């Protein structure tokens, strides 16, 4: 018997740079998800909040902050953090409680308010904190790491900046039809390649912005769901894997990789292991997917994900993007939502938003960006300090 939970409802606050309190976005998304589920707030037995590091103490206890704003009901609560993978952590906590029979209905919610410009460490001098030190000693911003991966891809596989631009162009077209996307502007390759270089070879339009936004899910046991709806969309897998030693790819926020002197590098590198963990739980494989939402922190990184989740062999991702295989109407549409290219990153909400999109797609409710007949979708994402995140949703 598969260990499934139902996605009864989904909701989002539109992404943007609204400058309001993150709790407001979270409450908006939560109310939308409850309405979508036909579930009253008073019926929710458990709240899983995704934390934000940039909004003071309320951000570290996001589950409670949002529950308080919705009105205390005595529901049990958890607040979790896993950097960009925060949303998957919250989903997994709620799913585990439901599968353990500890509750029937849970609310998962994450929201963020972000400052302008590069993400930077929180304030103060912290010479023991690698995240603080990488900025202080190297100026190693997130786009620096994305630039290293992109250059590596060009060397290994002959990718070109025009290939990277094609990813942005595709995602910008997808996002045009998404009411929750922040950027709804169609770019062409020339415009992307004319934008200023930020971290060679990546240009401004290759790199995702930082955004405000909120996303929420109402999850329930399959028994509870069947009382409310005839055919609920289901979560079939949640992978929150960590790397295996030695992790030989340089990762944010590290200064160095693990050393492979005593133990050889694993056959499955970390990024490949993230989706693999989800496939194993769901007894599915990449050939079963109808669509995927992957974490395009940069346009080049989306190409890496094609290979990491098994859509093609290493080195074939450029062919996929050039042939239009990952565009709407192609063999395996990727980021029909428009991805981070159209949203920008609202860290604790993002992995939840990926599941919102898959749910709308699998219900046939993704007007303007619908993948026809979609039945199985996968999300993938990665949080710094070794947090994998992948969710499989099935119709």
């Amino acid at each position, binding site marked *: 018997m598969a260990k499934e939970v139902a996605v009864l409802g989904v909701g989002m606050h539109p992404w943007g740079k609204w400058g309001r309190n993150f709790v407001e976005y979270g409450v908006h998304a939560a109310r939308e998800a409850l309405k979508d589920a036909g579930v009253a707030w008073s019926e929710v037995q458990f709240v899983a909040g995704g934390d934000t590091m940039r909004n003071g103490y309320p951000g570290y206890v996001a589950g409670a902050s949002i529950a308080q704003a919705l009105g205390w009901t005595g529901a049990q609560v958890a607040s979790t953090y896993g950097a960009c993978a925060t949303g998957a952590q919250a989903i997994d906590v709620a799913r585990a409680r439901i599968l353990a029979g500890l509750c029937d209905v849970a609310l998962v919610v994450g929201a963020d308010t972000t400052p302008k410009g590069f993400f930077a460490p929180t304030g103060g001098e912290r010479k023991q904190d690698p995240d603080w030190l990488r900025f202080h000693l190297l100026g190693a911003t997130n786009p620096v790491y994305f630039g290293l991966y992109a250059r*590596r891809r060009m060397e290994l596989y002959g990718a070109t900046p025009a290939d990277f631009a094609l990813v942005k162009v595709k995602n910008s077209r997808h996002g045009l039809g998404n009411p929750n996307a922040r950027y709804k502007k169609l770019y062409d390759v020339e415009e992307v390649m004319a934008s200023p270089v930020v971290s060679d070879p990546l240009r401004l339009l290759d790199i995702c912005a930082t955004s405000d936004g909120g996303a929420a899910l109402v999850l329930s046991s399959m028994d509870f769901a069947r009382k409310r709806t005839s055919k609920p969309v289901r979560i079939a897998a949640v992978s929150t894997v960590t790397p295996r030693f030695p992790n030989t790819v340089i990762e944010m926020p590290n200064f160095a990789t693990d050393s492979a002197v005593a133990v050889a590098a694993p056959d499955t590198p970390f990024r490949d292991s993230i989706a693999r963990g989800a496939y194993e739980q769901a007894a599915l494989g990449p050939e079963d997917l109808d669509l995927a939402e992957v974490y395009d922190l940069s346009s080049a990184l989306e190409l890496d994900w094609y290979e990491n989740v098994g859509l093609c062999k290493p080195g074939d991702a450029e062919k996929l993007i050039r042939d239009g295989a990952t565009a709407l109407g192609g063999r395996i549409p990727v980021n029909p939502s428009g991805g981070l290219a159209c949203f920008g990153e609202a860290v604790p909400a993002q992995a939840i938003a990926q599941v919102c999109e898959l749910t709308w797609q699998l219900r046939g409710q993704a007007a303007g960006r619908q993948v026809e007949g979609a039945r199985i979708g996968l999300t993938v994402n990665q949080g710094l300090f070794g947090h994998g995140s992948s969710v499989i949703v099935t119709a």
Partner: protein
Amino acid sequence: MPPSKTRAPAVEGWFTMDADEPRLLGTRCRACGTYHFPKESFSCRNPGCAGSEFEEVPLSSRGQLWSFTDNRYPPPPPYPAGDPFEPYAIAAVELEREKMVVLGQVVAGVGTERLEIGMPMQLALEPLYEDDAAQYLVWKWRPAA
């Protein structure tokens, strides 16, 4: 002429201050030989090793360029960006003996157009910032002669 300022490391204990051949300082597990940079001092990161004793070791000062990029815009604080800001390259260099990749800035004046994956790189020291008391140095990579 004012006396030249004291030279101090921007971070204590991460590298030697040898002007001619500086070395990064890591640790090596006495049980399994795994290298760690920055130093690990209480628990070996190899999950198959219970080692808790380490020796401090200088890492190889030469390696091969694994990948590179640059900063065209000033990174946010706590990076001590100069004004005006000079763009600079960043390198990821693979050390053969340690079987690990180590990041570093590339020395001033060497842009990405002069870098190529696979080329030999050599460790150097350059100023990161200065205050009234001292000039603070950081390790950087430069193309090997």
